[in-house]
């Protein structure tokens, strides 16, 4: 399997600002699942069924440890999920976003409480783009978990603003010894992180790595809509940090990380939607009212048929994005991710809402998993750029400009 490269895209079509949206993709994406991907899916699904049944997931949301460290360790170290994107030379699996997307589907299906998206996809992509060789081997082995400290709601862009203050090394400090001070809030998958990758909007723009165990780092969990992916606030007070990327490299790393995050979360949303559909179909076959299964009523059949149709569209879009991410970062990848995030956001939310409605009263209770999916679906639809924001980006990507300003 090929090494992930950032900033190049083999044979990418010249599809950019001002270029006709009719330009065709330069390669044919493989939209199916390979045998390897199917095996990986089976391994992850089996593990999740065993270690993360929904009752345990629900119970964990009301403990002080809302992330499942044990499950993450098994997934990261034993199944190798943490190092999927990391080249074999750095201790990873040398796989691609296609495989990462399949894992994300399964994690979505189980609303699993692990920092796969934040660490193994977003932070890992940033580190790969930055050319890091120090942290990646430790991420690959599962020894460390990292988080790029940008709010989860930030959509794809190159230079997100941050309020973190940077103090350059003082006399007597080590050569790479920067100090970071500031507060960043709304972070996903940062609660279990050992390493923070902190974008700093300075001159030049930079990404700095800080250890959570160092003095001056504080984390405050936030009461989050998605109970299965608890957000937090990070406070930094003169925290020692090392610069891992600066200038265009840092900007490109952040763009790649946010794009990969949005693309992979689309597959997570696909998994959420599929689980909601499957669970609901099974339920309406069993649930009897008026002396017949409610799934026999046409009003319900048609809603579920429409949902299934939406899922087929979401699956195609998610696979398209995963395949283009695996090919590199270029305009067609950006377009593919925008489409996937837009469509999968809407589909996951629709699926979760249909799940609640078609379960009737039981779906509105705490003791049924439907609410976990609704909360995940709604949060994911905002995370890494809303459907609306991603569709809006098509004005340039597909050459469909809006009304002239003023």
């Amino acid at each position, binding site marked *: 399997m090929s090494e992930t490269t950032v900033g190049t895209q083999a044979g990418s079509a010249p599809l950019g600002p001002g270029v006709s*949206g009719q330009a065709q993709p330069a390669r044919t994406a493989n939209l199916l699942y390979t045998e390897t991907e199917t095996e990986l899916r089976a391994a992850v699904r089996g593990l999740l069924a065993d270690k993360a049944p929904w009752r345990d997931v629900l119970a964990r949301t009301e403990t002080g440890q809302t992330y499942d460290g044990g499950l993450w360790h098994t997934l990261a170290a034993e199944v190798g999920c943490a190092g999927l994107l990391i080249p074999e030379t750095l201790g990873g699996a040398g796989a691609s976003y296609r495989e990462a997307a399949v894992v994300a589907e399964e994690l979505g299906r189980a609303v699993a409480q692990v920092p796969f998206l934040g660490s193994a996809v977003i932070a890992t992509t940033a580190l790969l783009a930055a050319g890091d060789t120090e942290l990646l081997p430790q991420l690959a082995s599962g020894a460390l978990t990292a988080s790029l400290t940008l709010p989860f709601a930030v959509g794809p862009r190159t230079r997100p603003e941050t309020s973190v203050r940077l103090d350059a090394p003082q006399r007597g400090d080590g050569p790479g010894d920067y100090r970071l001070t500031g507060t960043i809030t709304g972070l996903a998958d940062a609660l279990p992180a050992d390493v923070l990758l902190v974008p700093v909007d300075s001159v030049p723009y930079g990404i700095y790595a800080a250890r959570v165990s160092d003095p001056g780092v504080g984390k405050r969990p936030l009461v989050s809509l998605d109970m299965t992916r608890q957000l937090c606030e990070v406070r930094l007070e003169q925290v020692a940090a090392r610069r891992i990327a600066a200038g265009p490299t840092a900007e490109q790393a952040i763009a790649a990380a946010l794009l990969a995050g949005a693309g992979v979360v689309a597959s997570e949303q696909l998994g959420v939607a599929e689980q909601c559909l499957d669970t609901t*179909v099974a339920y309406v*076959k069993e649930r009897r009212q008026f002396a017949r299964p409610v799934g026999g009523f046409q009003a319900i059949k048609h809603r579920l*048929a429409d949902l299934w149709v939406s899922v087929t569209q979401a699956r195609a879009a998610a*696979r398209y994005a995963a395949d283009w991410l695996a090919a590199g970062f270029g305009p067609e990848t950006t377009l593919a991710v925008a489409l996937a995030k837009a469509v999968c956001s809407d589909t996951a939310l629709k699926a979760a809402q249909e799940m609640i409605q078609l379960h009737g009263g039981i779906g509105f209770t705490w003791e049924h998993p439907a609410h976990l999916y609704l909360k995940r679906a709604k949060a994911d639809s905002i995370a890494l750029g809303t459907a609306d924001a991603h*569709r809006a980006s098509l*004005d340039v990507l597909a050459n469909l400009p809006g*009304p*002239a300003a003023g």
Partner: protein
Amino acid sequence: MLDEADTLRSQVAAFLAAHDPATTERLEFLRARFDAGLAWVHYPAGLGGQGLPRSLQPVVDREFAAAEAPTNHPERNGIGLGMAAPTILAHGTPEQKERWLRPLWTGEEIWCQLFSEPGAGSDLAGLATRAVRDGDTWTANGQKVWTSSAHMARRGLLVARTDPDVPKHQGLTYFALDMKQPGVEVRPLRQITGEAEFNEVFITDAKIADADRIGEVGQGWTVSMSTLMNERVSIGGGAMPREGGMIASAARTWREHPEVRTPGLHDRILRLWADAEVARIAGSRLRQQLAAGEPGPEGSAAKLVFARLNQEISEFEVELAGGDGLLYDDWTMRRPQGANFFGRNPGFRFLRAKGNSIEGGTSEILRNVVAERVLGLPKEARVDTGPWKDLPR
């Protein structure tokens, strides 16, 4: 795969060397191409193909197109190529395949489909056209409707009731009807667009040789279903480039007329473009599944999405046209050569798209199909299980 593609390319080269497209008579060229197994490579040897994967057909088509070879005008025989041929292949006798497939493929014989009736639309199995056997000949009587190409067709795929005393699905038999006989009268059926793509077909004491029966007596429903599955794939699942469908003209108008842009319309075109592009990608995925030998039920989804999108986009386009949206190009009764979903003006497309959720299985029936066959949900309680002759009509 690469080897097979290379072999095919050299076969086409050898064929072209022996049959110069510039000098060989069109029909002679097409018949020879069929006989060389280069017509549809996924068909069996001796029937125009070589038993190869369907995915290799584009290799052959590209080579012939590059040589500017005569084509069989597939657009003129959509029903024949898309529905009749696979049905004959699946259910025909060796003699029927031998007799019908070659002239079908070359376009010498156009086929049409005689399924729907005024009293049997979604409930196709309730149809009333009767066929009665006398020795080796059947005599058919009844009326069919929504028959495209009937006025040009040499043969029609006819499903008729041969036993009214059994439940409706069991009493049907499938035939190839000779359309050029006195008992078959074709009348144009004018539609909301002003033109007549379709026909009504009045069948009065029409004769059918028993040798033209496809499948066993009483198996008409099973055979019809395989025809209809092919129809749904061909209506919703064709390969398309980006902006290849209804979205093309909407996007063009959007780009060429900045003055029509408003924030509300902008949101709508972005949504429509995204949905159309995702539907296109889903179509590619469907074809990749077929090519990999993993056909899924997604064909039904493609048709549902295609119908909805065409309607939404064309509706949007008329609005985008502003004052021009109040105009129509031509109400004159015409006989177009085939369905033209994306042609003419926005008003025409808007009207024509209304048929997309009705033809080839209404969207409501397709939702039932998805719910029952894909999701496994319970069937509707039925009141039509007794003998056909006793059902209220």
